[in-house]
């Protein structure tokens, strides 16, 4: 695995910034372009880059298979749970206005939770798909 020194150091340098950018896209999605779908894909891009440069084992040490697999249903559950929370608190399914003390804040919170669910599912699914293809090739 002693490939190219520059490549490996460069990857190490750039990885945190890609992750940071993914989080920026996620949390700044309310004010600029971005949101859970894009951030999830960028996050899985980190794993792809890691696998290409350092090999599958290194990538799976950072993002273990088991965690990735649990992320997929977890995201859907976060999303649906937000909806059910509204239901339990006496409004319609996916009506966020009961989540906070005033309606606008509650909607912001609801949108945030839902986007987090989308992020977790998309990142998990894309990474799992990538792992599946790579493992098949060995």
């Amino acid at each position, binding site marked *: 695995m002693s490939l190219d020194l520059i490549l490996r150091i460069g990857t190490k340098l750039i990885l945190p910034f890609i992750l940071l950018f993914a989080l920026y896209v996620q949390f700044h999605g309310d004010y600029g372009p971005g949101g859970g779908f*894009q951030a999830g894909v960028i996050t899985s891009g980190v794993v792809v880059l890691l696998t290409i440069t350092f090999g599958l084992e290194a990538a799976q040490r950072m993002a273990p298979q088991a965690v990735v697999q649990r992320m997929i249903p977890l995201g859907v559950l976060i999303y649906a749970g937000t909806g059910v929370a509204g239901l339990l608190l006496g409004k319609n399914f996916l009506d966020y206005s009961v989540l906070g003390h005033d309606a606008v804040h509650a909607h912001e919170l609801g949108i945030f939770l839902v986007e987090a669910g989308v992020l977790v599912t998309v990142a998990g699914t894309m990474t799992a798909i990538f792992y599946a293809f790579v493992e098949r090739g060995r």
Partner: protein
Amino acid sequence: MLAVVTVAIVLQRHLFGVVVLTTIYSFLMASVLIVLDAVDVAMTEASVGAGISTVILLATLHLISTTEMRSFRTKVLPLVVAIGTGALLVWGTLALPPFGTADAIIHKHVGPRYLSDTIKETGVPNAVTSVLADYRGYDTLGETTVIFTAGIGVMLLLRGMRRRGRTEEGGDGQ
């Protein structure tokens, strides 16, 4: 600008630079989408189309042979079908409102309401985000479930059974 995309598509008839051309095509599509004011969509297209789907396509090519067989089938019938469909569609679009006009039907429906009320009702200035996660939460929940299902499907197909070749007897024999 749109012509460049078209040329890229025509070039895509080559054999297996196809994947690389698909990536270029995705980037061009993303720039077209920016011009059309769809910044969120452009971002998604750039990261998904040019990023992840290229990686997955390359991984697939690693698993199967990378040369395409020359087909002996006739090319005339598909061409006729495609051109016929296209001509019908062009004829159909003539009744649509012209490009870029503000008084088209689409701008008279729920769109303006989303735009005018998004700050008041959700506190989120990006209308795309508020419609995505709030006004149309059901849709997005459905889409998330579809992604979930697709992920499960891929893992079932590729990870369940290790490669056993054709040592298994029976199966597809009949």
